[in-house]
């Protein structure tokens, strides 16, 4: 998308027919016609394979995100009890949320194996930042999250002494200054 004379597209503009294009982000389909749904510039992504090219509308400035089923989120642990951890969802993917959403990680969703032997106090502590996946839209108050995958879990935590800890295995983190080891369900670092 280089410096062509881009006319800004306002919501509700007709962009194309569903016979010729796929509907991408920032668009919706009604009666076989693709319309724009946000203010932005029009773009066409070439088709991978034999399908139609995708028509999308994108905008450069920040758009706030909401969690959807299957999205990867970054959350801060607020409260723990033996059955579940309350978290505040701060980011969905790489877009921030306008205000923190409430989430819950139940103790059986922390690990994939040996779910009955998991203890919350050895997995998360209040103040930890975790990466998790949304598994359900949940109840009236919270989204349900899970950290069963290897790359999900604690990404940042501070020790009891207040220093940032480094993960040494999937279930332990170490304070580099004092040498103390604390148990957490760590995310696999890349």
């Amino acid at each position: 998308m280089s410096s062509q004379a881009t006319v800004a597209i306002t919501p509700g503009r007709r962009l194309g027919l569903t016979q010729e294009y796929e509907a991408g982000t920032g668009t919706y389909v009604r009666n076989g016609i693709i319309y724009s749904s946000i203010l932005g510039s029009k773009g066409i992504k070439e088709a991978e394979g034999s399908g139609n090219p995708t028509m999308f509308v994108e905008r450069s400035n920040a758009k706030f995100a909401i969690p959807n089923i299957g999205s990867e989120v970054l959350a801060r642990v607020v409260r723990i009890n033996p059955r579940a951890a309350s978290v505040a969802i701060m980011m969905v993917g790489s877009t921030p949320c306008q205000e923190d959403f409430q989430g819950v990680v139940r103790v059986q969703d922390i690990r994939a194996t040996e779910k009955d032997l998991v203890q919350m106090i050895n997995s998360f502590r209040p103040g930890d930042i975790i990466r998790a996946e949304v598994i359900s839209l949940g109840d009236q108050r919270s989204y349900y999250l899970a950290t069963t995958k290897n790359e999900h879990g604690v990404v940042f935590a501070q020790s009891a002494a207040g220093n940032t800890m480094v993960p040494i295995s999937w279930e332990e983190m170490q304070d580099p200054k004092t040498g103390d080891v604390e148990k957490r369900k760590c995310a696999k670092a890349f």
Partner: protein
Amino acid sequence: MSANIIDRRRINGPQRSVEPIYPKQPTSTSSAGRPDGRAQNAVRPIFVKTGPLSPQASSAACPSGSAYYEQGKIRISCAIYGPRQGRKSNARMGAFDCDFKYAPFSCSWKRSHMRTSDEKEIALMLEQAISPAIRLEAYPKASIDAFVTVIESDGKAATISAAINCISAALVDAGIELYDSVAACSVALSGSQWIYDCTQEEEDKAECSLMMARMPSADEVTYLLQHGKTSPAQTEQAIQASAGVCTQVYAVICHYLQASLEQ
């Protein structure tokens, strides 16, 4: 209403106040002309600025989108917060909530600091007019909140339609997915003729007013409000007239939105 209640929390102005002496306005001599010299079918000039409440110093608690709207003497500002965690949290669709407030100095009489039932009713009208335009199924469990403040008002039906236009512009600025922007306009019956976009002075003399909110690209009317009594033929005439004016207002708002992006 508030004449006997003394507001102890704020520094009060004098209980009695007198209007300043204004220079004489040139009044039109012919009875057919409008006081401000507009044509019968002319809408007041519109100005829209999006993003006046963007974060500058800190991003703490700043709105996702905002707009400032002027139409003649009407001045309205709107802030959109969202999508954020909803209180009712229906899993299927998001919710759109609107809060409407006249500033105490916005009308020619002093308005209350507290939200009155009038303002709550208008807030419900705005919700009903705007909700059909938002793609709420794209925001499950989330809530989109609009806060509208009328800085200066001039004609009730015209102010409500200006509020709808302002919220539309603010929603677009916030990047909320919409089916289309909503454009609104008002007409009033004076004698046997429908005059467009009335000021407070003209509205006081009119027998009936009609306000329409419309999505031009889908050709759908989202809200229709009539005050006063007319025959069905007259109402039909007003609806036809308003539909055309809504399209014009929509074009003006889109022009400002496009200009805001090209900055």
